[in-house]
């Protein structure tokens, strides 16, 4: 149930025992303090309470500053500070009023009517009202926006979409219409992607939104973007007018700190280094191995990400995977438990299902323990499938053809995934299965992907709603690797998206998960966690369902 899940996921990671001798540790601390002193010196503007946050940054600077068009997690992480949503979602998955005081859903579930707060203004002084909501939603579904995520969150699609349009009923009342029931809507609304730009910014800076910047990235949030150096730094100042946090938020009124500085530090090691030396107060996107590098005196928060775990996607229409026996054998042919333990040092959980346990109202615990490393069984299955001969290199063959598949990934492959793949590859060799890996550049990957010209690929897709499965399993879905039509699963998914009763939805998605477990189309590998590490001097830091740090109530005690 949601409550227990949230508790389970938001666990404090155990601190590792300090590995270095005390003397060394002290010397290092001294050095760190010295450097911190140096680094802090120019910014010693006594009264200002500044929180500094180090992030990986990914491709944020590459035109992903428009919350409506981007699909990057980092955009949400950073821009949450500027943009508020109509509804909020508490840690236990409940939807609560935010910019909307209340909402009503029609019985046929085709109309959502929102009553807005009347005291909200944008950073540029524009009032937040029904017109602003409509302008933003119109912007999201405008083809020119080329929205990669927001449009699908709102239920818009060029064909067979759910979203019909937005109507202004009066100054503070707005109605969103759907052509058929679309259950994930509130979920989507609670995300920064469906946040609100000042209509003035939308009109005047339409072409600059992707590049972003002060005066362009203008929302209603607790922080105002005041300085922006792409790929280096974002500076925010507290929005003094702010008085409209989501219901149930502990902190109230203006943000607790005066200034929030987000520094882009792409390398995991350098983020940890910066944290240890006091250059930054909080870091995000910490890898499991790097957690060990964090010294004493820091809070580590790990939140298992909802959505689809990091998984292998099998193209059953291609090569040897057409045979279900081979798919079964493939899954049994590598020691996932040992691999995940070895690569992630026990910081990430091994995945069982195509949905992560933290995905609200959907997880199927019954699939746990249903498959594990078993070379005897895998060998037997392959024998049964007719792959009985072995060639000089020890690989199985059938009719002179070697048993093998190509795993296509796009560059860059993070170290942990590469190591995981190395182990999988090595294990599969023992059962006579040759798994080759092909790492291509994103552009080339897209070419291959468009025609599904590969056997196997990999990614993880975090999402707050189980509906993410629709794009991954439904026939013809954008992220559906298999090109084989499967009416039974399509129907289940369509049913689920139109169902708003949580229990019924959960039942439907559990069925989907069991189905995948039998079919072996997606092989889940590991449930990643968002790991954030903060100095203990940081107070009031909170986390959302994705483990993203929220700085509204955060301050640093110097």
């Amino acid at each position, binding site marked *: 149930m949601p409550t227990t899940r949230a508790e389970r996921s938001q666990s404090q990671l155990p601190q590792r025992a300090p590995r270095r001798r005390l003397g060394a540790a002290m010397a*290092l601390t001294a*050095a*760190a303090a010295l*450097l911190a002193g*140096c*680094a802090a010196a120019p910014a010693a503007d006594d009264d200002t309470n500044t929180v500094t946050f*180090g992030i990986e940054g990914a*491709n944020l*600077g*590459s*035109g992903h500053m428009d919350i409506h068009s981007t*699909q*990057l997690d980092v955009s949400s992480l950073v821009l949450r500070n500027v943009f508020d949503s109509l509804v909020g979602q508490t840690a236990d998955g409940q939807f609560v009023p935010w910019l909307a005081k209340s909402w009503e859903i029609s019985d046929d579930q085709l109309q959502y009517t929102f009553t807005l707060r009347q005291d909200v203004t944008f950073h540029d002084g524009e009032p937040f009202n029904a017109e602003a909501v409509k302008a933003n939603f119109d912007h999201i579904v405008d*083809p*020119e926006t*080329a*929205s*990669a*995520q927001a*449009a*699908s969150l709102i239920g818009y*699609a*060029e*064909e067979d979409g759910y979203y019909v349009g937005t109507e202004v009923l009066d100054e503070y009342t707005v109605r969103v219409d759907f052509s058929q029931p679309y259950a994930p809507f509130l979920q989507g609304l609670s995300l920064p992607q469906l946040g609100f730009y000042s209509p003035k910014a939308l009109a005047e800076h339409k072409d600059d939104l*992707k*590049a972003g910047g002060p005066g362009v990235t203008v929302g209603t949030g607790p922080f105002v973007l005041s300085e922006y*150096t*792409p*790929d*280096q*730094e974002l500076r925010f100042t507290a929005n003094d007018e702010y008085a409209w946090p989501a219901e149930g938020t502990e902190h109230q009124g203006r943000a607790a700190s005066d200034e929030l500085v987000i*520094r*882009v*530090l*792409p*390398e995991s*090691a*350098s*983020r940890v*280094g*910066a944290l240890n*030396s006091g*250059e*930054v107060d909080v870091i995000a996107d910490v890898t499991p191995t790097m957690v060990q590098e964090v010294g004493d005196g820091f809070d580590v928060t790990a939140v298992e990400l909802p959505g689809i775990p990091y998984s292998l996607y099998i193209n059953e229409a291609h090569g040897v995977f057409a045979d279900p026996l081979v798919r079964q054998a493939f899954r049994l042919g590598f020691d996932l438990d040992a691999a995940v333990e070895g690569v992630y040092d026990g910081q990430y959980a091994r995945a069982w299902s195509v949905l992560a346990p933290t995905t609200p109202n959907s997880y199927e615990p019954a699939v746990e323990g249903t498959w594990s490393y078993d070379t005897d069984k895998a060998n037997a299955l392959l024998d049964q499938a007719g792959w009985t001969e072995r060639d000089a290199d020890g690989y199985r063959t059938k009719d002179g053809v070697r048993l093998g598949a190509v795993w296509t990934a*796009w*560059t860059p492959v993070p170290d942990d995934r590469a190591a995981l793949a190395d182990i999988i590859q090595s294990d599969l060799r023992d059962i006579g299965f040759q798994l080759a890996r092909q790492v291509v*550049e*994103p*552009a*080339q*990957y*897209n*070419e291959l*992907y468009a025609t599904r010209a590969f056997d196997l690929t990999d*990614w993880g*897709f975090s999402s707050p709603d189980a509906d993410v499965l629709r*794009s991954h399993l439904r026939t013809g879905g*954008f*992220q559906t690797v298999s090109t084989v039509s499967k009416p039974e699963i399509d129907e289940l998914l369509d049913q689920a998206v139109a169902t708003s009763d949580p229990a019924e939805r959960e039942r439907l998605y559990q069925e989907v998960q069991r189905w995948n477990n039998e079919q072996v189309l997606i092989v889940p590998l590991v449930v990643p966690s968002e790991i954030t590490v903060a100095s203990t001097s940081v107070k009031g830091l909170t986390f959302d369902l994705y483990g993203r740090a929220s700085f509204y109530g955060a301050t640093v005690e110097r």
Partner: protein
Amino acid sequence: MPPSSPDGGRAAKRVDTRRSASQTSLSAPPTSLVARALGRLGGMLLVMWGATTAGFIALRAIPGDPVDVMLGVTASVGESVRQQIRVEWGLDEPPVVQYFTVLGRLVTGELDSYQLRQPVMTVIADQAMPTLQLTGLALVFALGLATVGILLARLPALRPMVSTFELALVSSPTFWIGLVLLAVFGYQLRWFPTAASAGLPALVLPALTLALPLTGIVSQVFRQGIGHAESQPFALTARARGISDVRLLSRHSLRHAAGETLTLSGYLVGSLLGGAVLVETVFARQGLGAVTVRAILGRDLPMVLALIALAAAVFAVINLLVDLLVARIDPRVRMAG
């Protein structure tokens, strides 16, 4: 020199026979400075144009739709959106039209990056600073260290050591040097911050990384140059005047070695952008190197072309500076015109 001198012509011919084709007559009046500068400028533009054209052709040959790149790997958008983007960026035009459009926009500075959605000039201007700081400090380090190496190598006892060290530096991959420095001084000793944006202290290790192979090459070439100069007949005559070793170095051989070293240094400085790619990756720094890698991996044609043009321009400008400097040092070059 006065062309009227009857001896002048003869001197010229003797030069011809003695030192191959590179040296020629002195009797010709020097071409006017303006004309020469214009010639150089023209050559520079030609090289830039050639390089960008080659880049355009190469990038057109690459498989992969730039629209995919703009959208990202996991973006789900329909065909009409893609078409919309294609029209917006002129990607639906025939290649020749695209070529001239891109070239025209490059010249006027209006060319926008596919990925970054800002004018490439802005991106380059923004990112040039970190790279300039990096390469600038690297140059300072390289010259300083090379001087130390050269001075140490004057002591015969230390010469083999210096030379071995040089060879090791020249032979090590830049990024590996970076990693070792990072591991030793960053993680183990913690003398320097490992975070990229921690100001000057954070610049030390990357600059050192970039500088070390450079040091090796420069000091090697410089020492060879001095050795070569001191084996020339004029060094014998100079010694026969009773001058000291120090004077031989400072008044004679230093200048001879400086010419070659400058030429090489110019080439190396031009290739620092390439080195910056690796160093910026290792140290996770921002800068043109990082932009380059991302632009190429992302098929960001406009960005790549701008970077190529920039590299060609840097190359040409540095060459020009080096030529001017060498001509200042070496009258033979100056007179060859």
